[in-house]
């Protein structure tokens, strides 16, 4: 039975990785938000299963926070932002998608190789998933680097937070409750500020391309 629970955690971790990979191959903002929501659902399920396997009731609570925040509230906010900014379609990436995916594969191999000796030291039921969580974080980084528009970058940032949260859950059965609540609040406030920020970028430059921010202005 415990073996099956362990395998279930591995499966959910793989789904997280698959969704992170789908995100870097996705061009449309609307689909990106849907993928992000799905990643949140997978994260909630993974946290619940780890909580059940290790009898840690506080993980149920953090799963609840994740559900409210990352599956309901943030996607709702993002939907409103893109509806207001009218940017449902985005086809611009700095590197073309197949190249990005090949870099992604290299990152996955790097993450797995890095995590292998670490996970051998661990006795956690979810030790094999550390490499997957690390790969998720790196893939989200890659997404933030290769996108030139503001909204996909924000989604990449949020997805990176998903990966970090999952790494914390799988390696150490979650962070202390105070830290977790703090991070949850930070992410929420971050999203609100970034939302306001996007409107300002648009007002200033008539576009959401953050390359405009690299230029220094004389006046």
């Amino acid at each position, binding site marked *: 039975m415990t073996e*099956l629970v362990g395998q279930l955690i591995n499966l959910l971790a793989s789904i997280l990785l698959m969704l992170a990979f789908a995100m870097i191959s996705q061009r449309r903002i609307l689909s990106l938000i849907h993928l992000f929501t799905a990643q949140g659902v997978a994260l909630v399920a993974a946290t619940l299963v780890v909580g059940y396997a290790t009898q840690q009731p506080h993980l149920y609570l953090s799963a609840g926070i994740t559900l409210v925040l990352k599956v309901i509230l943030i996607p709702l906010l993002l939907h409103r932002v893109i509806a207001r900014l009218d940017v449902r379609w985005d086809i611009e990436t700095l590197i073309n998608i197949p190249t990005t995916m090949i870099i992604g594969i290299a990152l996955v191999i790097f993450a797995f190789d890095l995590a292998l000796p670490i996970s051998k030291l661990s006795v956690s039921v979810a030790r094999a998933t550390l490499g997957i969580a690390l790969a998720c974080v790196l893939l989200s980084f890659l997404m933030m680097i290769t996108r030139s528009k503001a909204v996909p970058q924000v989604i990449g940032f949020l997805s990176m937070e998903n990966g970090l949260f999952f790494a914390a859950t799988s390696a150490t059965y979650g962070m202390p409750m105070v830290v977790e609540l703090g991070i949850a609040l930070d992410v929420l406030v971050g999203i609100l500020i970034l939302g306001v920020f996007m409107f300002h970028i648009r007002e200033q430059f008539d576009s959401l391309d953050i390359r405009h921010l690299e230029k220094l202005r004389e006046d």
Partner: protein
Amino acid sequence: MTWLGVFSQLLEIVMALLLAPLLGGWINQCRAWLQNKSAPGLLQPYRMLHKLFNKESVLAEHASPLFRGAPYIVFGCMALACAIIPTLSTDLPLSPAADAIALVGLFAFARVFVSLAAMDVGTSFGTLGARREMLIGFLAEPALLMVLFSASLISKSTSLTTIVETLAHRELTIYPSLAFAGVAFTMVSLAENARVPVDNPTTHLELTMIHEALILEYSGRHLALLEWAAHLKLFAYSCIGLALFFPWGIAEAQAPVTLLLAIPALLLKLAIGGGLLAVLETLSAKMRIFRVPEFLATAFLLAVIGMLVHILVRA
């Protein structure tokens, strides 16, 4: 080789030949329902085949024997593929003849012949279709091989019957690598069977068609054989998918009685799978032809990640 083995082998070939058009009809019917159209009858593909077999076959003046022979070769390849894949039983005398890699080779063989035949007559559509088919084929093949390898890593054998025996008849284990392989396999089989995101099976619009452009010059019994072969190919791919990811219900050599149960199990699984394929086709829009390499590269890379995950989790 036992008499029971020979019997189940024959039963499997007959079932494949008879059921394949029915599967095509079922998918068309589901698709029509989902799109609020009135559906053609479930037996429409059989009527189509009957009509085509009774018609005269018209050949181009310059058609070589290759053009005339290709439909028989393609049909033979697909029928053999259906005989190798364990759909009803794992006790198959023919299955040692070809493992998963040879199976992919068999599909490639059929593809080469149908493309050569399309170029043979020298019409522009045939050449165009042949080039597109080869473009999709050379990208889909490595992805399919990778999917089959992820399953082979688990059972440590590339023989399909061994893979099914390992997956179906051990205690329940969840393999994360198979989740990746499943997604990759779905993408590959959509591309290989000319289904919607890659090619529209019902179109005759010259700019978008791939499969239809290949067989545009055929008529009569040749066209019937090619249509039947296309149905068989879809059936074969569905059965590979079912054998790798939902292998329960396939009979074993030691338990011949389960062969009786295997037939309704197969019918049920195919009906559900066909319905899901119709949903997938209705939900997605056909993509531009130059997006197809990207689509298939994603499938290939997902299958590679699946293998990597397998190694990580085992370690």
